[in-house]
């Protein structure tokens, strides 16, 4: 099964698919912090987390699954996401320099990281 077929299948299964891109500018340790957050522990949504980073608490709850991606898989999915908006259930979370993002609010002291995680899961 290709990665696109996998994503298509998951879109029917999960309420939300989040591809987390750990980086800088507020996204350091993003995957681990997100998976351990209160927001993830208390969400009623069925969430799939995709990331190349390790996550210390995969499948810790019934609410989310974690898939570790290879760099190539992440690149392929990112390409797809940047080609068009193929689902409102799929989001890529990063600190991209080409547009604004929620982590700018964290850097400006307007929101906490936990509040950003809650906003993402809304």
């Amino acid at each position, binding site marked *: 099964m290709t990665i*696109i*077929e996998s*994503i*298509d299948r998951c*879109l029917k299964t999960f309420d939300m698919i989040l591809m987390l891109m750990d980086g800088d500018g507020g996204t350091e340790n993003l995957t681990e912090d997100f998976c351990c957050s209160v927001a993830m522990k208390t969400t009623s949504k069925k969430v799939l987390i995709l990331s190349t980073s390790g996550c210390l608490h995969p499948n810790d709850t019934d609410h989310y699954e974690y898939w570790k991606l290879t760099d190539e898989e992440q690149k392929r999915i990112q*390409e797809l*996401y*940047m*080609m*068009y*908006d*193929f*689902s*409102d259930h799929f*989001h*890529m*979370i990063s600190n*991209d*320099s*080409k*547009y*604004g*993002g*929620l982590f*700018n*609010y964290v*850097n*400006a*002291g*307007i*929101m906490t990281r936990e*509040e*950003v995680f*809650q*906003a*993402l899961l*809304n």
Partner: protein
Amino acid sequence: MELQYYREMQKSLEEMESGTNLAQKRIYLFGHCNATEELADLLMEKGYGVTAILDNSEAKHGMEYRRLPIVAPHTILREPAEQTIVCIVTRFYEAMYAQLRALGFTGEVRKLVDYNTYAEYSLSRETLERKKTRVEHGRVLIDCLEKKYPGHFRVFCPFAALGDVYFCMSYLPYFLEKRGISKYMVCVPSGSCVKVAELFDECPVEVMQQRELDAAIQAELYIQDENAFIAHQDRPYVVNLSRALYHKRIPLEKVYRCGVFGLSDRTEPNPPMHWKPYPDLNRIEKNRAVILSPYAKSVTALPAAIWQDIVAHFRTKGYQIFTNVTGAEQPLEGTMPVSPQICEMRSVVEQAGTFIGIRSGICDVIRTAECRKIALYPDYNYCDTKWKSIDIYAIEGFENIVVTR
């Protein structure tokens, strides 16, 4: 609604009429907004009965537009599907279509305006090919921009809203300085947006048709171009700033200052500088006139009675009363038309002494004018958040008033 979209809506409706016996259908509209109101008006002008407007915002349920009730989406399930049609003129067509199908509605759902060329909720081979072709077209457009403006950093304003362009230009210098950028150009989707951009700086500004601009922006995202920036608070789909509003009240200017540009909350906005005097200022009695601005493309209109009361009030005070009009807009009854260029607006309102407008981008354009300024807000929520529009759009220096009638 922008004229190009109105024409698209008319054309789509005509096509629908030729293929479907609309008179035999129960017609629902989905998503209450200014565009949906215009569609309702058009359908009623053509003699069709619209049953109701579906909307996800519970705050709107029970309200009406021209006696059309605004109801929850699941209400559609009461209707026989084969005799019902849902028409959509908002940019959330894909999500609304998916929602209707998920509810179990099997009737016809039609998109009458393609507001959102970024979205297609499918991973089929045909969709992928179509979207690849669109990106390739976008890359050609970027190459043209690079040839026309060699070495210029590209700033994109993806949506034709004057206020968005105003905020972009106001905070852009700090952003560019932070990134060490000295040469830049701005891409906008309308002539009016050019006029707003020109208030601030003499940088090159390129107008692109909305679909072309969308394609260029998509290509910039796809090629991960570091020489470009998309300066908007919720477009395209990759921008997630609006999610914060489910959790926190963040006024629009702060969204731009901190969320879009990543600046400190203490950053002071740059004011527009390139104003010109309106040539017929002598027509306007100094401090004894009022400029009314009742029209806005993307905001639900206020009831006519509100403006009638305002006109009557200023008439009894002996004021000259002007309506700011552009294109085919008509002045309010009992008022005189005035049509200043955007760069002349400040001189007009300062001469008059009083400005009263529906909260729209024009209010942002004149926010530094020294006169009495009143912004009127229809009583609606900002998107599907719990905040009222005044919570997000209130302007410092204005009297901000919610119209509840």
